[in-house]
């Protein structure tokens, strides 16, 4: 039986979906969230959010510039999940969080996410539509637009989660200069290397997509982490199996 690439893709998506649903029921039954690998960046983030609320300082959430009709949008959606959790916790603060993005549609979704979080926390009066801003539409104009917000608006912690290129170093540098906490993750591999050196708490690889699970966004987030783990092991086994088969084939010839 021969599969073409699109049929294989459809099969992967269906199996992934079934795994998520299965793990979601399992996690709900056992209370969820136990045995998650420790990611210190998220523990420090939770502490930084608490400190910002207590100190009366602001949180800056930067969602990057991943356009929603491209594959880069997944990193933006992961950032929106983190924004939703952060906005709920910080909704009681005198200084509400400020959000920057580099795409028009993303800035509208950021505004919607903030508005929804405030409504859920019954703090509608705290919501200000100018909290979610489009800071620039090219990589460097985006960074140039985000830097004054970090420097001038009493920001004590910056959370950068979305699609960025090397320009992310300019934003982390600004956050460092003000002595603020920085957690940063992107889907762009060269930018992840830059973050390893430039960010206080870098999120490497798939850690960006785990934000919702670690910030308690629900069972489905934890279930999707478990499904990713299953698929990762399957891919590792496939790679190792392929390597061994190649080796045996070369050895037999």
């Amino acid at each position, binding site marked *: 039986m021969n599969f073409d690439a699109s049929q294989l893709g459809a099969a992967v998506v269906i199996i992934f979906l079934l795994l998520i649903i299965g793990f979601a029921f399992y996690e709900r039954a056992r209370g969820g969230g136990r045995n998650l690998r420790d990611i210190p960046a998220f523990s420090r983030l939770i502490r930084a959010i608490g400190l910002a609320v207590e100190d009366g300082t602001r949180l800056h959430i930067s969602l990057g510039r991943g356009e929603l009709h491209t594959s880069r949008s997944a990193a933006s959606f992961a950032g929106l999940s983190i924004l939703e959790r952060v906005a709920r916790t910080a909704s009681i603060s005198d200084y509400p969080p400020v959000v920057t993005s580099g795409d028009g549609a993303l800035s509208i979704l950021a505004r919607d996410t903030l*508005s929804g979080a405030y409504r859920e926390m019954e703090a509608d009066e705290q919501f200000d539509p100018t909290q979610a801003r489009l800071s620039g539409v090219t990589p460097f104009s985006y960074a140039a637009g985000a830097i004054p917000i970090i420097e001038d608006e009493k920001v004590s912690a910056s959370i950068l989660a979305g699609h960025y290129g090397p320009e992310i170093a300019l934003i982390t540098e600004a956050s460092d200069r003000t002595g603020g906490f920085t957690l940063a993750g992107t889907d762009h591999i060269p930018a992840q290397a830059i973050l390893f050196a430039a960010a206080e708490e870098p999120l*490497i690889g798939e850690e960006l*997509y785990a934000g919702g699970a670690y910030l308690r966004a629900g069972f489905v987030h934890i279930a999707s982490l478990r499904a990713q783990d299953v698929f990762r092991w399957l891919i590792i086994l496939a790679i190792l199996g392929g390597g061994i088969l190649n080796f045996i084939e070369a050895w037999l010839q």
Partner: protein
Amino acid sequence: MKLRLPVISMAVAILSGLALLYLAFFPSSANAHLRALLLGWAASLGGIALFIGILNLLIVHVDKLSEGGRGAANSGVLVAAAMLTFILALAFGPNFEYGTGEAYQIQPTNWLFRYIQFPIETSLMAVLAVSLIYAAARLLRRRPNAFSIIFLATVLFILLGNSLVGSGEFGVISTGVTSLRDWITQVPAAAGARGLLIGVALGTIATGLRILMGTDRPYGG
């Protein structure tokens, strides 16, 4: 029964996502036309969203300008530049040409991008280079562990390999440096990058499926 706006938004988002997924997995000439149509709609909506975003940006900076204080001058420059660009684009359009030959150079909006925006962004790239050197120097103080040392040593070695030493000016040393540089970039670095890419791809699928399932709803509040 009265339907609430978030329910309608969720239905539209899920149906659009499922439709595009179906069209991607079962391609045909009829499907390709429908897919192009849907993506065209998305691009148009993206344009409108960009316009709304720019209006929002202008409102923020007009507010800052009227409040005065730190950064008000920068806000003034931003508002003035945005208005100037908007008026020029409105007056001359994107395809305005005056005379022949050097038309591109006198097309007003192109001129703005070519002689103002582009040099400013290039200078920011130069600032970025300095920022990266500073970040590398600070890494050992921030995370003094084996991984940081390996990271910095690899960066320095690859830079060395791309410099005069790697260009063949130093005989056997150059050959050794370039061979090791190529091995590092093609074997351990490529293997690590593939591992990260697999993680990103799995995260992308999981995020997309959560949107399709309606458990992540960053739309409609």
